[in-house]
């Protein structure tokens, strides 16, 4: 089979990719042996493929990778993190909170308690119905026998009482206070008050 220059040019790309039939391939190779022009074109096309196929031709602007990762980070849903990620995040949050509390005790958002002797209660349900005396310091479960001024009682929730700075009664609300919160002094007071109990 004899092929002309124009036919060779049309198949040069397929020839480089190994996409021509064996018969045509053999005819082209025969043609290249006797044609300097077509050989120059073949060499040039091969050079083009080799030069552009080099990794160095795939340049990216400086900082491209970092900007891409930042963008990806922004697009990642935070709630779908792995269990490990969650544990790490929670641990970090706990540490942060602890360091904040230890380092800045005065910065606490809880209001000052009205009673120096009272302890705050974190385990009382916020929606628990309680009563407190308007100018008093303690809030109680309605009916608590340690309420002193029953004529001035106001009804509210435990959450509201705590916000107002009332402290929980260490007797009627005792079950909501942890051992660490009911200090020795509280227990002593309780015992003392119980001794004075009119009933």
């Amino acid at each position, binding site marked *: 089979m004899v092929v002309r220059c124009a036919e060779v040019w049309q198949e040069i*790309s397929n020839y480089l990719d190994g996409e021509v039939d064996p018969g045509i391939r053999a005819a082209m190779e025969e043609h290249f042996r006797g044609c300097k022009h077509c050989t120059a074109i073949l060499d040039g096309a091969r*050079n083009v*493929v080799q030069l552009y196929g080099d990794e160095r031709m795939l340049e990216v602007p400086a900082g*491209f990778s970092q900007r891409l990762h930042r963008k990806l980070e922004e697009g990642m849903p935070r709630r779908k993190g792995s269990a490990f*990620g969650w544990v790490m995040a929670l641990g970090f949050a706990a540490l942060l909170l602890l360091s904040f509390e230890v380092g800045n005790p005065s910065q606490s958002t809880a209001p000052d308690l009205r009673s120096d002797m009272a302890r705050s209660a974190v385990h009382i349900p916020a929606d628990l119905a309680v009563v407190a005396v308007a100018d008093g310091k303690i809030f109680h479960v309605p009916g608590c026998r340690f309420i002193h001024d029953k004529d001035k009682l106001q009804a509210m929730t435990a959450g509201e009482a705590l916000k107002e700075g009332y402290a929980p009664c260490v007797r009627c609300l005792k079950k909501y206070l942890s051992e660490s919160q009911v200090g020795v002094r509280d227990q002593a007071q309780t015992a003392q008050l119980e001794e004075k109990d009119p009933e």
Partner: protein
Amino acid sequence: MEPRNEAMLIERIRRGELELFYELIRPYERRVFAAALAILRNEADAEDAAQEAVLKAFKHIRQFRAEARFSTWLIQIAVNEARMRRRKQQAVVMEPMVDQQDQDGQYTPRDFADWREIPSETLERAEVRQKLAEALNSLGQKYREVFILRDMQQLSIEDTAKTLGISVPSVKTRLLRARLMLRDLLAPGLGGSWSKTLSFAKGNKPW
């Protein structure tokens, strides 16, 4: 990255280890950018499109089918993203002269200069890379896209056709034209005038 490792990474990402996505895309970042640049011809636009494409790949990783190659799928997303952006810009973008000169039909080389092997060290020189990039940018869109996917991204002819939504014969025709047009554009420079300023200057050519 080995296909097996890649498949395992993708599976773990699907199960929730999202941070592994960084590792998955790292080998392909440059290729995503190059694909977008081929279409948009502007680095800033290409970077935006590349970022968006990677983000879309992340969001749709569950839609990736294991029988396909991840790199091909990712490049396809980048091409689509860049094409969408180009359509928005098209009113103001002018196609280069080369596009109008090359109609369908037989291609006749314009230069028969003898251009033998170019040493790969040539690419260390920024000015050579710049000349190659300029030549590539002067090609018409349809030739540039095929050439970049096939010869720079190393996609197969079939994957190139699939990615661009064109037939295999169209890929072959455009690839032939792209390669020969680039040869015509580069042969005089790499074989002659540019070489006066390069290390392989006339008389010192390694071939």
